[in-house]
């Protein structure tokens, strides 16, 4: 029912309602984005409880700064910018640990994921991908998740992360290189 109601109006309608004082309208905005935000955040922190805390923090920040949204970019881009900054600062604040293999990037070949992966079942594929993702820096995880999970383009990611488009492209290439290499190593074990 809610989905049907939501489909009838766009984000700007609910934003204006919240700005006019109808706080309950914010629940529609939240319902629209919470799963997508949580899916990205959970890949970064690997813990649902932490991910929900961060997601809650993100939505509180979105609510508090809704007046500063001028509509110059898509609302989703603006929201993911808050999500990106909040996730990174929460990781720093909570000191959530991660392991990165940044050092040997230059030694990695530009390899593809082996065709053997097609023979694996979905659960195994996801497990390999999640293990490979754990070798990335949180910022890299966010960039690749925004690109693949949320279908954000280079331009949107550039706006979200405040990096230049060229920098985003370079980073995406490096992240893919790392992921491909790690997945192949995991499959070879």
């Amino acid at each position: 029912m809610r989905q049907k109601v939501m489909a009838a109006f766009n984000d700007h309608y609910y934003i204006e309602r919240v700005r006019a004082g109808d706080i309950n309208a914010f629940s529609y905005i939240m319902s629209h984005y919470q799963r997508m935000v949580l899916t990205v955040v959970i890949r970064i922190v690997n813990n649902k409880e932490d991910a929900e805390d961060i997601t809650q923090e993100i939505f509180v920040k979105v609510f508090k700064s809704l007046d500063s949204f001028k509509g110059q970019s898509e609302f989703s881009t603006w929201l993911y910018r808050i999500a990106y900054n909040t996730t990174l600062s929460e990781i720093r604040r909570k000191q959530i640990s991660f392991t990165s293999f940044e050092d040997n990037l230059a030694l990695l070949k530009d390899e593809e994921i082996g065709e053997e992966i097609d023979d694996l079942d979905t659960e195994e594929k996801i497990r390999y991908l999640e293990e490979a993702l754990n070798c990335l820096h949180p910022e890299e995880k966010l960039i690749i998740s925004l690109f693949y999970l949320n279908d954000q383009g280079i331009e949107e990611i550039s706006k979200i992360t405040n990096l230049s488009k060229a920098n985003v492209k370079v980073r995406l290439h490096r992240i893919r290189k790392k992921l491909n290499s790690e997945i192949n190593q995991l499959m070879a074990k």
Partner: protein
Amino acid sequence: MKQNENKDRLKELFRQIPQEEVTPSFELNTMARIQQEAILMQKKKKSRSVLFQIFWIATGIIALLGIPALILGLLDINITVPSYSPYIISLITKSLQSIHIDPITGTIGFSVLCLLSVNLLIRKFIHKKQQSQNGMYIES
């Protein structure tokens, strides 16, 4: 071509990740926090508007006292207050009786009072308008 296949393979892997479901209490808890934040924001706005009013009232008082003093100064009118106390009351009474308000000073003083009243009315109007436009209310 091979690179494209590879990209698609990674993309395929990401596509297979299911979207996470939030716990049932998540939305309720978040909305409760947002309601709290809204109340806090409302309180902050109120205290800011009280400070704003205090500032304007203080400005008004300063103007009320300062402008006539300035006018008196400009018109070179000296009011001497005797320092010895026994004659103070009688002198004040006498001077009050002998005060003759200059028509120019009176007009300026009256204009200042009118302007201050208009200022107060405009501020009240703007404050009410701001409250109705930006004020957060919570629907039950």
